[in-house]
């Protein structure tokens, strides 16, 4: 009887041990993974984001804000086609502005020169303070 009771106690404690170990290791893994380089935080992958559908520019009427959406009806095989009309072809050209008669003269980059002059001040400061650190054999 006492042997059976001992075995039961041992079984219960062993089960508790396993539960405690699993809980401990599980929480530790979560904390470690949170900052691990192998599990980066979720980011939005812009490179795989669906591109805006382009509007056909030849042989189609261009309507403002026209976008091609996936078929939303339950009809099988239905595809969305650009709306075609009998109007003559319309070609969309990039908007261009009138060029000035001559190109403007570029403005000199004086800001970077200012930064260089500030750097010279820093170098001269380093030079001034260097010798004081030499010390001498005493």
């Amino acid at each position, binding site marked *: 009887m006492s042997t059976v009771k001992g075995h039961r106690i041992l079984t219960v404690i062993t089960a*508790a041990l396993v539960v405690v170990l699993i809980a*401990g290791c599980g929480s530790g893994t979560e904390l470690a993974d949170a900052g691990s380089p192998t599990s980066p935080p979720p980011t939005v992958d812009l490179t795989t984001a669906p591109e805006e559908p382009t509007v056909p520019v030849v042989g189609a009427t261009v309507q403002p804000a026209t976008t091609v959406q996936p078929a939303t009806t339950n009809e099988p095989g239905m595809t969305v086609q650009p709306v075609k009309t009998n109007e003559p072809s319309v070609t969309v050209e990039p908007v261009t502005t009138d060029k000035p008669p001559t190109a403007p003269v570029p403005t*000199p980059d004086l800001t970077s020169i200012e930064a260089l*002059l500030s*750097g010279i001040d820093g*170098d001269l400061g380093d*030079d001034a303070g260097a010798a004081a650190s030499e010390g001498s054999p005493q």
Partner: protein
Amino acid sequence: MNRNLTRLAGTFAGIALAVSVAIPALASTGPSGRVSDRPAQPLGAETDAARCRTDWQATREDRTLAKVQAVGFCEIDRRLVTIDRLQALVHGSDVLTDAHASALSRILDHSETGLQALRREIAADTTVASATEDVRRIFTDYRIYALVTRQVALVRADDRVDAAINRLTHAADQLAAAIARAAGNGKDVTVAQGHLDAMIAAIAEARAEVAGDASAVLAQTPATWNAGTAKPILDAARASIAAARSDLRIALTEAQAVLAALR
């Protein structure tokens, strides 16, 4: 037997509890808990002369071999930290020419290997006299602060002057074109042209000020420093760089005046 099993199970349970508490605690040690292999002190505290003051004081009070060696190690170590910083400045510089960066790197590498060898010699010294002589060589054979640090600073400044001269020259060309355009449109450009002439003259003065400075500075060695000839050359280079900087400041102001006159 049952009592022993119970005790054994209790021990396991205790270990399990300890482990379950310890694992999350260890896992939560973030970057802030990382042990650094570099001193956390600010750079000045690592390298200035005051760092070894205590060792020098101890040596003056009781001149034993161990104390002389300790002061030698301190003086060498702060120089090695400084050389490390200077190497980073040279390698990471975007103003040094390739030739000047190579020349400074050679000086720094030679100083580093020499001081490391001298450190080993001091460690191997067996008498106060030989250790004292080796400690003296830390100063006379290397001149890390009086010469090498100044060489890096002055050559960097000199190359910055050259870079500023090049950019201002390019800016002067652009301003000359702008003046020509304005004149072609019938604008009176007398004032603008006057400022441009002053700008070009200031650039020429700056160029003349620093001609040959970098080569003269790089040619200096601990031996020329000890002979007393290096310091006047470094001081003269410093003065000419400062004068060139003033010339360039004038040139920059004149450039801004040209732009204002053209508006």
